[in-house]
């Protein structure tokens, strides 16, 4: 038996150590060297350039989307609602939904607000069933919600911009009276009022109850 036959048989029996394994870092470097050989510099450099620029474009466009979107909820509602005024939305049907992904079991009303001149006063009498009031900035960010379980029979609150809130005297009667003060992070946005109709034939009466809801500029 020659030595060259003998050595592998010894290795198989684990009598001799196997050829030492490459250090992991060295293996990475070797793989990188192989890639460099396959992809010369004039390909690798533009490729890296493309990836970096694509990443920047992607992040910038995602961040800009809420400002640039043409069919955001606020833009859609501007077509049918006046600022600082309550507007009942039509029921969601297969053919038409004012806002996508609306729950068809609810009757909804919206109020587009503009706080630049005066704060907004929202008053929503509770309907026969679950009722909630949610607040969104014009860019669609949800920042507050309240339901009749938490608020009691009538949901009543004042929506203020940060500067109006700061101008409020510390011990104003507003806080003493059972009135809630909510601070909006933006000057413009949407108040969404949703009332649950447990059966479809109750929708009409819920809708009439929701007509009593109001949002007005306060002084």
């Amino acid at each position, binding site marked *: 038996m020659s030595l060259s036959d003998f050595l592998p048989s010894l290795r198989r029996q684990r009598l001799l150590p196997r050829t030492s394994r490459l250090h992991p870092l060295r293996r990475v470097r070797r793989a990188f060297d192989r890639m460099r050989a396959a992809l010369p510099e004039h390909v690798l450099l*533009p490729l890296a*350039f*493309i*990836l*970096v*620029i*694509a*990443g*920047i*474009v*992607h992040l910038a*466009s*995602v*961040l800009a*989307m*809420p400002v640039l*979107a043409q*069919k*955001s*909820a606020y*833009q*859609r509602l501007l077509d049918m609602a006046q600022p600082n005024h309550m507007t009942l939305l039509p029921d*969601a*049907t*297969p*053919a038409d*939904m004012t*806002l*996508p*992904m609306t*729950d*068809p*079991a609810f009757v909804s009303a919206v109020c587009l607000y503009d706080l630049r001149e005066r704060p907004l006063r929202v008053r929503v009498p509770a309907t026969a*069933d*679950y009722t*909630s009031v*949610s*607040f*969104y900035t014009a*860019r*669609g*960010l*949800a*920042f*507050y*919600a*309240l*339901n009749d*379980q938490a608020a009691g029979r009538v949901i009543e609150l004042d929506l203020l911009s940060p500067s109006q809130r700061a101008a409020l005297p510390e011990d104003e009667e507003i806080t003493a009276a059972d009135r809630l003060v909510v601070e909006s*992070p933006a000057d413009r946005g*949407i108040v*969404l009022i*949703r009332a*649950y109709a*447990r*059966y*479809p034939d109750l929708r009409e009466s819920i809708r009439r109850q929701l007509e009593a809801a109001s949002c007005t500029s306060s002084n």
Partner: protein
Amino acid sequence: MRPLPLAVTLAVAVTLGLGLTYVSVTQSRGMDAVRSGAWTGWPRSGTTQADPYARAAFARSGELPLELADGLLFLAAQDSAGAPLDGRCDIRIAGTLPQAQVWTVTLMDEEGHLIPNDAHRYGFTSNEVVYRPDGAIDLVLSPRAQAGNWLPTGARGRVKVALRLYDAPFSFSSATGESSTLPQVTTEHCP
């Protein structure tokens, strides 16, 4: 680099970046997805902590996400075994639901439109549904009329189901761990 290759490289980079944005904004509803069986929820999308992808997706679609203090939305586009929901099949949604003041189940087509039908039935509410004696729900989605809690699918190809829990004393941590809290979605019979 010479001008022409530079222009080509830039064009490729911008196309790739915008393409990536388009895909992420149309396919995703945010990065904080919480999965529970067939259902996926995005609890942070209805809060001020919504991530940039959620904000971008909602700005593009025009949807106002449910405020977390109001309710929580779960979507199922696949059954519990991972197969896409097919409106031509009989699909059963059965199991118990977490505690909530009100819940609704809504059936939609792939694009999120309600599916037209003569009964104007687009979903069930917690008050309409007939419960099993143990308090569990048992809904059937099918193109053919069925006994019990039936939702007509109009034989659409792909459908998806929204489950909304309102005024639910819900914490995110419990949603990730217990997959048993949301009902099972099973495809039962395909023609």
